[in-house]
């Protein structure tokens, strides 16, 4: 029970990050390798504002704002000039941005891990199991955000424009969709989700290092691929699945050291069996 709750909340974190990956991939057709490091940026912003003001709510708000702005700035400076260039070039640039963020953070904050004191909500007992309230908060807020995002994409005109760009960028452009603006919004939303993810991540593991984002980033990306990259429900499903698998593996002593290997092995197996991911859409290549 505890394992499942933990797994679900970790899964919610992965799902939030994976959503950022999958939306950017669906709309801008690029892998934003720097996405994981946006989480790290968010974590450091929370740390700094918490030290300055002592108010966790201001810290959370600041982290969302900074992450969103960072996402937009990165998109403008690093990715926009490469629109229309080969995917490999964009991918390498994204890796460069990821390194850039990590090294800047290390120069500012040092490579040592810093502890952060977020308010402790204690534990509650459900059916005889002690579950941390933060886990429940992660689950509930994560669920609300994901539901909100689904509604946003399905119902609003911006959301529909996003779907259109994802489907066929050229046709969307002809229909009067401002593609650059849509891509910018996508990056903004993805980065804001990463800010939430950083908050939830810190609630589980309250220490920050400059490479904090890279592992969850890679795992969330794995989740996005497992679920079928470019698909929003796929990212949620993949994230929750991966979170559950990780916690279950960690709870079994015999295989816990190999958790990372199992997770990535699963990725390879899923791609072998179904290269487009569980909920991915098959795209036929046109000559």
């Amino acid at each position, binding site marked *: 029970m505890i394992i499942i709750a933990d797994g679900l909340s970790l899964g919610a974190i992965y799902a939030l990050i994976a959503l950022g990956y999958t939306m950017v*991939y669906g709309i801008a057709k690029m*892998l934003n390798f720097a996405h994981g490091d946006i989480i790290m940026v968010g974590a450091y912003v929370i740390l700094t504002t918490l030290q300055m003001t002592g108010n966790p709510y201001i810290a959370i708000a600041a982290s969302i704002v900074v992450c969103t702005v960072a996402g937009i700035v990165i998109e403008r400076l*690093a990715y926009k*000039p*490469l*629109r*229309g*260039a*080969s*995917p*490999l*070039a964009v*991918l*390498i*640039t994204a*890796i*460069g*941005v*990821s*390194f*850039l963020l*990590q*090294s*800047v953070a*290390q*120069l500012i904050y*040092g*490579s040592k891990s810093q502890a952060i004191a977020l308010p402790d909500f204690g534990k509650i007992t459900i059916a005889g199991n002690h579950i941390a309230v933060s886990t429940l908060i992660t689950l509930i807020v994560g669920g609300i955000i994901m539901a909100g995002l689904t509604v946003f994409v399905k119902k609003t005109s911006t959301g529909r424009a996003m779907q259109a760009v994802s489907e066929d960028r050229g046709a969307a452009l002809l229909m009067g969709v401002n593609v650059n603006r849509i891509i910018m919004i996508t990056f903004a939303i993805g980065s804001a989700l990463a800010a939430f993810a950083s908050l939830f991540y810190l609630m589980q593991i309250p220490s920050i290092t*400059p490479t904090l984002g*890279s592992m969850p980033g*890679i795992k969330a*990306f*794995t989740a996005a*691929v497992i679920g079928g*990259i470019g698909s929003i429900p796929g990212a949620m499903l993949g994230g929750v699945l991966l979170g559950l698998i990780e916690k279950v593996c960690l709870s079994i002593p015999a295989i816990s*050291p*190999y*958790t*990372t*290997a199992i997770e*990535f*092995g699963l*990725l*390879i197996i899923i*791609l*072998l069996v179904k*290269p487009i991911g569980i909920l991915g859409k098959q795209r036929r*290549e046109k*000559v």
Partner: protein
Amino acid sequence: MAGFASNFKKQFKFKYIVSWVAVLAALIVLIILNNAGVLSRSVTGLLSRIAYSIILAVSLNLVVGFLGELSLGHAGFMCLGAYIGSFFANSISQSIDNKLIVLILAMLVGGVVACIFGFIIGLPALRLKGDYLAIVTLAFGEIVRNVFKNLDIFGGAMGYQSKPYNTKELYIVAFVAVIIVLIIIQNLIRSKHGRAITAIRDNEIAAKAMGINVTFYKLFVFMLSAFFAGVAGVIYGHFTTPVLYTTFSYNYSIEILVMVVLGGMGSINGSIIAATLITIVNFALQSKLSGDLAALRLLIYALILIIVVIFNNAPAFKNIRERFSIKSIIDSRKARNAKSQAKISDDDAKWDRIESKIKNDTILTPDLPHSDAPDESDSKEGK
């Protein structure tokens, strides 16, 4: 006879042999210097590092630059080579006295094991395209690290205690390996197979339509690249002890990628130069930048990576690029020299830049009296 001469010329075009000839010359100079006692221990150590970095960069370039697929798990293959090679060397060193033979055997074994894993990873990866392949190779690198970390026969989290080769001599073996790798790769990419590989990079569907076995070549390149990375890993394992899984992280794969991108994707000579430069810079900065300042190095790499890639690929810089590239400068000089021999070469494939000979006005006004305008323009060109 003339045919043979031109063939000979083509075979030994300066551009293609310069790499390994230069490395060979450098090696001879270094051996002479070493025998004269000029080279210190740290310099010979640096030379070994340069050697395995060159092998890594060149072999990654084979995948990224020539096959056009991104591999982010190159350090994983190197890790396999380092662990397996050192383990093998340790276990046979009792029965074989000659250290050189042990090293060479270890290189082959490490390379073959890495190659086998290249096959295992390549097989699913072939069904995937670009980004997916990148993530699978990344996942592979992490899996390898994670497994070696937990295997007790390989020392577990403490790292594997390999027996380092004599540093003063290791670089010679390493550079000979570099030369062999360079000769193999240079010959491969100019062969029929090499053209098939670049054809796959340029247009996979068209290559398939031409009857190129895409699956075979992708797997082949992947395995060859893994083999060389494994060999580099064995050199690494004989250079330093313990062999520690943390070395072969994702960051190391990226560092190799930086070498390839900086040297120019698809340029072997560029990879050699970039690998040498970056290794020397690393070596020089390692002692100067301690602690958190070490991040400065990564910062510089990241900036170089971003700027180089954006400059080389952004559509907005196309004009500047074409104006200032070495190729265009040479081309314009050639064009000046061969003014009289003006001809349109088809294989340049710059269709967008060939101007139309038909003038718009003549199309728009076909019924006007001076309808012989096209002839006029033709005769002008003839002069």
